[in-house]
Structures are given as C-alpha cells and as structure tokens.
C-alpha cells in the first residue's frame, strides 16, 4: 500500500534540473509526480514514475546519486477540509510528516497527495481505521 519514489541528488546550479529531465525524456520516462527540495548548494528532486526499475536504471546509468523510498499516495476528494482531516489524523497519532506534494490523475479526475512519514506501517494502520487506504504502485498504472 505504498508507492516507490525515486529521489535524486542535484547540484543547485542553472541547467542541472533540465539536464536531469532531459535524461528522463530521452528515455521516454513519464513522470506522474515531481517535487523539488532545495538547500543552498544542492537540491533533491523526487519523482513518481510507473516503472521504477526502468527509471532507476536510466538514472543510475546517467551517473546520478539516487535512492528509492516507499511513500504513501492518498486519494483526496476535491472538497474543503479533505487534506486537513488526513493531516490532523496523522498529527493526533504522533506521526510526523517529513514532506508532501500533490499530483492529479486526469483519467480518474482525482487528486493525490504523496506523504512521507517515518513509519509507513503505523500511518497505514491509523488511516485504515478511518477507512482511508493509500494506493499501491500498481494502481498508478491504471490512472
């Protein structure tokens, strides 16, 4: 009930992100979601793709440092308070949110949040109690 995120180390210099996305496009890799975190001199680009194995092979061959992390992807109803309810639920259960970002699935006409928490199992259990079920990686292909 998790999806695999690829995180890539990039130097914080003009053109470095474009170099990276060029590598993906040259290999026909389509991103479902992407987020960028930056420090003064470096950044971490995080992406969700359908075929993690293929993408990580391409990224590795291009000489990038990367890691694969399991994160939660949760479908959000498009209504006020939807995000708050989920975050509140995690907060009330002492689950810290390290970072999050959003993507949409046009075919399904819905929005998804990617959540990074220290303990996926605990978060899945807490969310499950309220009937919220994170999607798994195979679900992405259907979207």
């Amino acid at each position, binding site marked *: 009930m998790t999806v695999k995120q690829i995180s890539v180390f990039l130097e914080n210099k003009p053109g470095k992100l474009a170099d990276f996305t060029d590598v993906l496009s040259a290999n026909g890799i389509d991103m479902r979601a992407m987020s960028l*975190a930056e420090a003064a001199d470096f950044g971490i680009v995080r992406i969700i793709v359908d075929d993690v194995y293929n993408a990580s092979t391409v990224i590795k061959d291009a000489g*990038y440092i990367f*890691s694969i992390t399991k994160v939660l992807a949760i479908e959000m109803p498009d209504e006020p308070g939807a995000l708050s309810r989920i975050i509140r639920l995690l907060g009330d259960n002492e689950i810290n949110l390290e970072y999050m970002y959003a993507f949409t699935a046009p075919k399904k006409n819905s929005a998804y949040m990617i959540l990074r928490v220290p303990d996926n199992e605990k978060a899945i259990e807490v969310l499950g109690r309220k009937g919220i079920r994170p999607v798994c990686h195979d679900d992405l292909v259907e979207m």
Partner: protein
Amino acid sequence: MGRYFQPEIETASQEQIREWQSERLVRQIQNVWDNVPIYRKRMEEAGLTPADIQSVDDLKKLPFITKDDLRDEYPFGLLARPLSECVRIQSTSGTTGRRVVAFYTQHDVDLWEECCARAIVAAGGTEEDVCQICYGYGLFTGGPGLNGGSHKVGCLTLPMSSGNTERQIQFMTDLGSTILCCTPSYAAYLAESIHERGVRDQIRLKAGIFGAEAWTEEMRHDIEDKLGIKAYDIYGLTEISGPGVSFECSEQRGMHVNEDHFIAEVINPKTGEVLPDGEKGELVFTSITKEAFPLIRYRTRDICILTHEKCSCGRTHVRMTKPLGRSDDMLIVKGVNVFPSQIETVLINKGYPANYQIIVDRVNNSDTIEVQVEMTPEMFSDSLSAVSAKEKELVDALKAMLGIYAKVKLVNPKAITRSEGKAVRVIDKRNLYQG
C-alpha cells in the same frame, strides 16, 4: 632617532656581517651539539662534528631540519635551554598535528622585538608615533612581536588585537594613530570601512606594516591610495622568532633579512643544493643567536629569491623577495596554515571519497575556503534535513581540524575532474603570488 634602529648593525659591511655570522654559527653549532640530541644525531649521521663548522661557508655541510621534525620533537625535543630559563612560548596558527611551539628566553624575546623595532623604524617610526597593532595577540606572534618592537622604538603603543572594526577606527581617529600594523587583508578592510564612514579626513596614519599573509602590488597600491600611507611588508615565522625576520625599507624592493640573527639561504628544494643570488628556490633559515629554540637550516617551504645588491636605503643586509609560492602544498587561509592532507583525513574519516577539490578565494578582502566533495549513495537520502545534517557534520569536523570555517559543497559524482597523473586538489583564485 635616525633612519635606522641599530645603524651600526643595519649598515655594517657585508664582510662584517659574515664575520658575525661565522662566529655566532660556530657557537650555535657547539650549543646544539651539546644540548639538542636530534641535532647531534643528525650531524653524526652526516659524519660531522662541531669542529667541521669553522665559518658560514661550512653551513652547507649541515643537514636540514623540517616542519615534520619540529612536529616529531613536539613539545620539548628542540629545547636548547632548561625550561627554567625560558620566559615565553608562541605557537603557529595551529592546525591539528602540525602545531609548533617555540620557546623564548628573555634574550630571545629581546632580539625578536629588536628585529620588529628595526622594521618600525624602517617604516618611518619614531618615539613621536602612535602605533596601532591589530594583529592577534596571544599564541600568534603578530601582536606580541610588533608590540614589543613598538615599545623598543618608544612609540605610543595601542595593543588593539584583531577585529572590532568600529573600535579600531574610533581609537585611530581619537588617538591619532600614525602607524598601522595588521594583515594586509585587514588593512584593506579597514580602509574600506574608513571610507564608508566618511572619516578619511580624521585619520593621521602615515605608514602601515603588513604581513602574515601574501599580498599583491595591486593590493599595496589600493591600501596606500585609500589610506594615504606608505605600506611596508614584513616577513617572519614563529619557528624562527616571529614577524621581523625580514622587513621592507622605504625602497619597497624586497625585505632585508636581519642577518646578524638569521642566516638566509636559498636552495633547490629537490636537491638541497644552495643556489646563488637571483635564483629562485626554497628559503632556509638558521637562527644563530636564539638561545631556547635554535633552528639550524630550517626549511621554510617558502619559495623566494635573495639579493645582496646594494640598497639605496643604506642597509647592507641581504634582501629577499616576497614569497613567490610554496614548495609544499600548504595554503595560508585567513592567516591559518591549511594542508590538503588534513582535509582529506576528515573526508575519509567521515566516509566520503578522497576525490575532492579545495577552492580558495578572496571575497571583499577576506579569504574563503570551499571544499567540494562528491556525493555518495551512502550519504544520500530523500530527506533534505538528513543530507543537510551530514553536510553540517562535515563542516564541524573540518572546523575542528583546520581551526577555521570551510564551506562544504556537495557535488555530483564525477563532477570533480579526474586529471591524468597528479590530481588538481587546490584551486587558489586569489592569485597572490607574483613573479
């Protein structure tokens, strides 16, 4: 007071100087033979006894001593006098594993201060002057050396130490400082600050004595223009005594070595062969009058050229150029000695690859050092805070090793060019060495 602090010494004939040197060298060699085991051992290994050293011409027979020897003999191995006769220590700017502690008897302190006094008088100093000393005080020799020299000249001495620019400028204007002693980069910074505050017309400086780091002619002209002074260079090293081993006169064409105390030689750093005047090589000093911590043929690693040409200032002592480079890979950053090997040690200890690059620059007249390190899969994570924490850990470890802040820049694997043969570890953008 005239143009010289000790005219009979500073303008003595070169024959006279050689006579003093020979007599003092013979005495010093007997002294170290009797009192410092490492010298005796090295001389015995070279098949020498004190009887082989009859004059300054025999100096070249003697083995060299290096900074590594000083480190190995730390702290007391090179002492030639009992500690009860020593009154002071000073220490090099101090990088772990390379610290050198030098000992002084009262006689040693006096001769060092005399050398500084000669430099102050050469810069036009008299008992009428107000000498503002903004070198660091403490283990660093800059402050104590010039302070003592200023006392000997009879200047009103302002022992400011370094930093606190606001207070420096206030004392400079309120007390009418006429001579400024500090590092050239701090002089440039002070000059700018004085202009920014619009108090240029309130300062009375006429001369500056700037040393402890490399500086260019452009920098000299810039400081001279901004402050309306004449800027003099001064050279020295803790191992030999401190600032004042050599100093510039009004000709500003090389620094006169205080040859009655220190014999200067220039050698081929590869073969050890002594080079004639005008040839570039490694500077080697022998302290012939020091009591507590005499060094015989100490290799400074500074590259320079000597000349015995007559100087129109009237001083007869040999002149050396500013250091034109180093014969090892030592960098001087913010006055602190930095060896790339120290940085490499930290990286390896922290699990980083030994492929790194050090970039030294000077921004707003202040030295900066950046260490570029290649990212590894082990160091990487999807969490920015985790990577930043690792980066900070490395910054702290470098600070502990070097004593100064070095910026860490994490770069992509293979971002640092692999050169064929010897890797280019250091890029010094300061361009301080000329010639």
